[in-house]
Structure formats: C-alpha cells, structure tokens
C-alpha cells in the first residue's frame, strides 16, 4: 500500500471575497495519474497551482511528500524543486537556448556541475524526442516543440510529481498529438502526474482516476473506467455529454 504523496484536507481558498475552492479533499498516491476536468472557472488550475504554492490557500491543509504547505514553509524552493509544472503558455525563457533553458535550474538550484546538467538535459530532451533542437532558441520552434521542451525542462529537476495546467490548450490541433505522446510516455515511465485537460482520450488511455470539478468543488471523483461508464452526478453527465 503506497502512501499518499499529496494529501489535501478541507482546503478552501478565496480571491478577496470570492471563494474559488470549497472544501477540497484529495489524496494522491505515488505513481498515480489523475486527470482533473471541468468547465472554465471551476478552479481546476487554481487547485494545482496551490500544490506548488504559486497560489496560497487560506484554510485547510496541503501536505506534499510529508511537508505541510503554509506560510511558515521555510524552503518553498526545495518543495518546488520536487514538483514540476508545465504551463498552458509554455513560458520558455526566450533569451536562452533550449539546452540552457533545461540546465538553468539544475545548475542554480541543485548546484549540479555544468557538464552533468547538460548530459541530464540531453537525456530528457531525447525522451521527448527533441534533442536535435537543443541549440535552437524558443522563438525558432513550433508550439508543439516548445511545449515538449517545457516538459523536458521540468523533468530535468527530477521531480517526484508533475503538474500539467492545460498543456495542449494553446496548441494547433496537429501539434496536440506529439505533446500527448510525450505525456503518455512519461506516464508509462511511472511518474506521478496530475493533469488539467479537456483531452478525454488521454484520460481514458493513461489516467487512474478522473476528477470533475465545478464551481470550486470536487463534484465527482472515480476510477477512470467508472467515471466514463457510470457518471453518478447530473452535472458530470451534462459535462461529459458536451465534450464527448
């Protein structure tokens, strides 16, 4: 029985007067893949941004790999080094080459020697099949290539958990497949992943659990097969009928 690597209990978050997350309870075990879906504004992105503390929660507790996240967390950077994140807008650093993008954090955060960092980076770039572009700059690559680089960059920190915030929403349709392939490979390799996405095909193929959120609450949480075959909640059924 593997222990939970992420444990969220009664988490609530407000933006000013507006409550975006209501009583979230979630447990994620190691090596599990979770897909979070729901309409826009439901708080899915905010939820995963709370996990690496890009957003702060006001009530409840979040424990990541044994460390609780609150304002007394001394070394938030160490936590973040264990949790990788891939953004919708890629957010690659345009002034650095792809290789430098990937080696930046290992050199400056993990204090790795440059050569070792470069070898690690090339390894990760190989995994997402983009190692031939290592010397190019982000501005010279297509959207799909950039997102794969972003995945490689996050992987270079050898995180225990990978968070994906709508990774394919900003891509042209023909590029979505290459990014999803990279994510499927990653999943098969055993990484713990939490993915916010609308790509239900991906969810069916890879996810262990699917969570549906609406208006800040977790409406339904079930194993993948159960979720798609027997959605229990009305809202879930409505949502699935709209996107499938």
């Amino acid at each position, binding site marked *: 029985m593997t222990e939970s690597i992420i444990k969220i209990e009664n988490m609530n978050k407000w933006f000013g007067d507006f409550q975006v997350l209501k009583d979230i309870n979630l447990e994620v075990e190691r090596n599990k893949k979770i897909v979070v879906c729901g309409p826009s504004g439901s708080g899915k992105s905010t939820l995963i941004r709370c996990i690496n503390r890009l957003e702060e929660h006001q009530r409840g507790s979040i424990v990541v790999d044994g460390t609780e996240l609150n304002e007394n967390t001394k070394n938030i950077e160490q936590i973040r080094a264990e949790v990788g994140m891939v953004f919708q807008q890629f957010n690659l650093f345009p*002034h650095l080459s792809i290789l430098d993008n990937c080696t930046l954090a290992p050199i400056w*955060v993990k204090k790795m020697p440059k050569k070792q960092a470069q070898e690690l980076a090339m390894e990760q770039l190989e995994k997402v099949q983009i190692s031939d572009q290592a010397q190019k700059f982000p501005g010279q690559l297509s959207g799909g290539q950039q997102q794969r680089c972003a995945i490689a960059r996050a992987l270079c920190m050898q995180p225990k958990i990978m968070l994906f915030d709508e990774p394919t929403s900003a891509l042209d349709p023909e590029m979505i497949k290459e990014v999803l392939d990279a994510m499927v490979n990653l999943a098969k390799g055993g990484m713990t992943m939490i993915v916010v996405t609308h790509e239900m095909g991906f969810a069916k193929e890879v996810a262990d659990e699917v969570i549906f959120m609406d208006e800040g609450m977790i409406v339904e949480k079930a194993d993948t097969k159960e979720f798609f075959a027997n959605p229990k909640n009305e809202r879930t059924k409505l949502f699935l009928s709209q996107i499938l």
Partner: protein
Amino acid sequence: MKFRILSYLFFFIGCLDLLVKILYGNIFSDFTEDYYEIANPILVFTPVLFFSIGGVFLKESKVNMSIENFGTSRLKYYSPQFICLAVVVLIFLFFTFNAQINMENRGIDFGFSFLNQEASFDMQFSLMDYDGQDPYWWAYVVALLNTLLVAVLGIIFCTIIGVIIGIARLSPNFLIRNSAAWYVEFFRNIPLLLQIFFWYYAALRALPLPQDATPLFGVTYLTIKGYYMPAFIWNNLNIFIYSLMAALIAIIFVRYYAIKLRDTEGKQLPVFYISIILLIFLPLLAFLFGGVSLIFELPVLKQLSATSFIYDGGIAVPPELIALTLALSLYTATFVAECVRAGIQGISKGQKEAAASLGLTPNQVLKLVIMPQALRIIIPPTTNQYLNLTKNSSLAAAIAYPDLVLVFAGTALMQTGRAIEIVSITMLTYLSISLAIAALMNWYNKMIEIKEK
C-alpha cells in the same frame, strides 16, 4: 557586378587623389588661387568623397539591387537619381559660390589657422587649466570637457532617478504608483528651457549667502554662489590607483574562478561579497602600508569686501552646473522611467511563474530570467534618451555655463567672426558623438538579439 567594379574604381581614384596630395601638395593651387581660397578645403575633402562613393557602391553591390531587379526601364531607374544628385550638387555649389563672394566682400577668409590664435577670454569653470592666453583649440577642448562633464553627470543621475520612478510606477501601492505617475506628467510637459531657468533663476537664488550658510554633513556648504566641497589632496595617489586596479583584476579572476567552479563542481561562491571585501581591503592596505594619505582641504570663509564673502579652498561647484545637471536629470528621468516601465511590463507574468515553479529563489528569478529580458527592451530607447540629454546640454548657453556651444559657437565666434568654420566644427562634434553612440547601439542590438524564426 557592375557596382562592384564601380566601387573599386572609386576606391582607386580616392587613393590616387590622396597620394598626389600627400606627395605634391595641392597641385591645383595655382589654378584655384585665381578663383577662391574656399576651393582648398573642398579639394582636401575629395579623397573622403571618393572613398564614400566607393563604399556606397560596394554596399549596393552586396544588396543586389541592380537595375535588372528593379523591373522598369533604364530611364526610370537612372533619371530620378541623376536629378536628385544634380539638385544636391547644385545647392552645394550655390551656397559655396555665395559664401565665397560674401567673404571676399567682407574681407574674411576661410581657414582653420585661427585655432592657434590666442583666445582672449576667460572661462568661469573648467576642469583643466585654462587662461586667456591659451589658443582657441585648447578652449575648444576644455569646453568639450565641460559639456561631457554635464552629460556624464546628467546620465548618471537620470538613470538612478529614472529606474526608481519606473519601478515605482508598477508598484501595487496606490500612493507610490500615483506619485510616480504625477512626477512623470509634471516634468515631462514643461519645456526643458523653462525648467533650467526655474532652477537657476528662481530656486538657486533662494539659497543663502556664503556667510549665512549652514554646513551640510559638517564640511560642505550649499550657497547662492555655488556648492563648496572639500578638495581631496592625495599623497601617492598613484599607489591608491594601483590598489584599485589590483582589486578590480582580482575581482575579475574571482569571477572567472567562480564560474569554472560552478561548471565543474556545482558549488557557488558568494562572488558579490568577496568583491566588496576586495574593494575595501586592498585600498585599505594601500592606506596603511603604501604611504597613501588623504587630506581634505576644507573650504574656509573669506571676506572679499565689506559685504561679499566667498569660500576659499576646496572645490567650488558653480550654480550653473548644479542647475543644468538638476534640470537635465529630472527631465530626462521621466523618459527613462517610461522606458524602464515598458521593459518590465513587457515580461509576461508566466516567465516569473515558470522560473519560480522550477525552484529558483526570487533573487535568482530576477537575475537569470527577468533582468536579461527586460534589459533588452529597456536599453535601446534609454540610450536614445542619453543622446538627447547630451544634445540638450547645449542649452547651457542660456545660463552661461561654459559648454561647447557657449564658449566656441558663442564667444569665440563673436571674437573671430569665423562663422562657417566654428559652427561647422561644433555641429560636427555633436554629430560624431551621436553617430558613434548610434553605431555602438546597433552593434549591441545585433549581439544580444533574441533569435526568432
């Protein structure tokens, strides 16, 4: 292909021209003396002209804009150019011709020999030794140094103020943000000339007389006649300079070693703190063991007459310099602030988030991700503002600060009457500064360009 041949032809003619002039002097002098002496300098410039034309043809040959690519008839291609050049040449000839006649009628001749004559005026303020017996060309150099002094001081201050205001404009604090915005709107919309006048004639006139001044920091006095500071009198200044240079070299080595260490073993040295320690420690050694000593010559109140006092000794910063620097800095800082704000705002929030999500500390995010990108946006327009500041420093003529324009194109011109030579030299000086900085900026931009598709 044709252009390249033409360019080589012109280069060749230019070299011939130069050679002939160097070896035989102006072989046309008999010819031109009958006409007008002004032809002399024109003949001197002809090699330059030939080389430039050759250069133009060379560039054009590389661009490959030959007539074949232009796609129209020969007439349409060559005649506008011919007309254009003919008009330009005709205008120049017209001016030259008139100038020659006018100068002959007034008995003025053209030449630069006046530069060696004694300039018989004094300058209130100069960085180097100058008195009325020095030649005009020395007056030019000293005045140029004065201009550069104002420009450099102005650039330093306007950068500091501009960066602070620019960052303040983005503060989440309502009061700070609006105060900065009002600063920018206020100082930007009042003409620079009026600001200079205000500081010089209104604000600085409100300062106390020397005898009534209360000391700032104990030894400096801000008075209506200027800002008096203690002068540094060094003993063995060169040893101090060597110690500074040694500290700088040591810092360079430390940085180099730190980068190597980081690359090979990943360990990081606190380079910043080490540099500070070196900068303090080595000069300190110079003081203790190198025989360097520093005495301050304090300004002392001296009575010139029954009601007039002045401070003797020390360094006197004239109020003209203070007013000019203050006005230039405050005015240009508004533009620099806007450049800085545009630079920082141009970096999307996602960059900061991505860097933070990789585990970089806020300082590392700033140093490695934000600043490199922001500086690329900030530096080109800011350099433009520095150039504007340098050109605006010529307004010193309005309050009698002895800068290049006032001394050379003002006093010297009135004394010698050599309008064309003097104004040309002045304009060429500013033009050279502008072009040099613009060329530097182009080179810098090419170097740091972020590559795109």
